[in-house]
């Protein structure tokens, strides 16, 4: 027997000792995915609810992305940023989807949530400063890697608060 095949056999026995055959492997996979899906979608629902409440609260702060020529006695730059990641289940589904192409609704919703959160944080900062208009708003999206995989997205919203 060559040393290669002995090594393979030892490796096989090691994994078998841990209970890793295909059946249990699939079971672990299903367990982790279901857990990720349940926790992930609960967190997404909660986040959307929080966003709704926050946006209602700050309805009096408006934002625009043009430069108005209005009188102001002070201007302060405000910004809001957030890094959001998708759960494992959705990342996995997106990976499957990318085999066939087409829209990935889960990623769309993640990016939209991040954008709303960033705008909300920017408006909140303006509100604490006593401003009710933010002009020249720019939105900036970057993909952020977690470990060695690209998992999350960073959205930055910034503008000039008029006081």
């Amino acid at each position, binding site marked *: 027997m060559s040393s290669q095949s002995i090594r393979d056999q030892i490796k096989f026995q090691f994994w078998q000792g841990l209970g890793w055959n295909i059946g249990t492997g699939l079971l672990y996979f299903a367990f982790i995915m279901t857990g990720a899906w349940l926790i992930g979608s609960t967190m997404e629902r909660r986040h959307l609810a929080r966003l709704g409440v926050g946006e209602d609260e700050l309805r009096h702060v408006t934002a625009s992305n043009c430069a108005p020529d209005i009188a102001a006695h*002070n201007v302060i730059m405000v910004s809001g940023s957030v*890094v959001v990641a998708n759960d494992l289940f959705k990342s996995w589904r997106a990976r499957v989807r990318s085999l066939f192409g087409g829209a990935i609704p889960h990623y769309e919703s993640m990016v939209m949530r991040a954008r709303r959160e960033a705008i909300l944080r920017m408006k909140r900062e303006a509100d604490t400063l006593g401003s009710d208009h933010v002009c*020249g708003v720019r939105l*900036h999206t970057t993909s952020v890697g977690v*470990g060695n995989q690209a998992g*999350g997205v*960073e959205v930055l919203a910034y*503008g000039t608060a008029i006081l």
Partner: protein
Amino acid sequence: MLLSNVDHIPGREIVAYLDLVQGSTVRTKHLGRDIAAGFKNMMGGELRGYTELLQDARREATKRMIEAAEALDADAVVNVRYTTSSIAGGAAELFAYGTAVKLA
């Protein structure tokens, strides 16, 4: 130092455009944060450690830009823009730039 990301300071008059000023910083996250974010990444949601890290870095880049403007004896920086680019191996560059101006 007044900062604005539109091409003027609302309510003020610009008398001189001095120069382009910039500030940048390259940051990487530490291992502990990375591991914590890895777990969080399984469940989705906000990665708070990363949000704070990028905010700190952006503040630093802005500070450096303001220092450059102060060196030019400017009153304000207009048209401020931020960019982020990921440089190899989990490091990110945060970059801020704008035009230093003199106000009336």
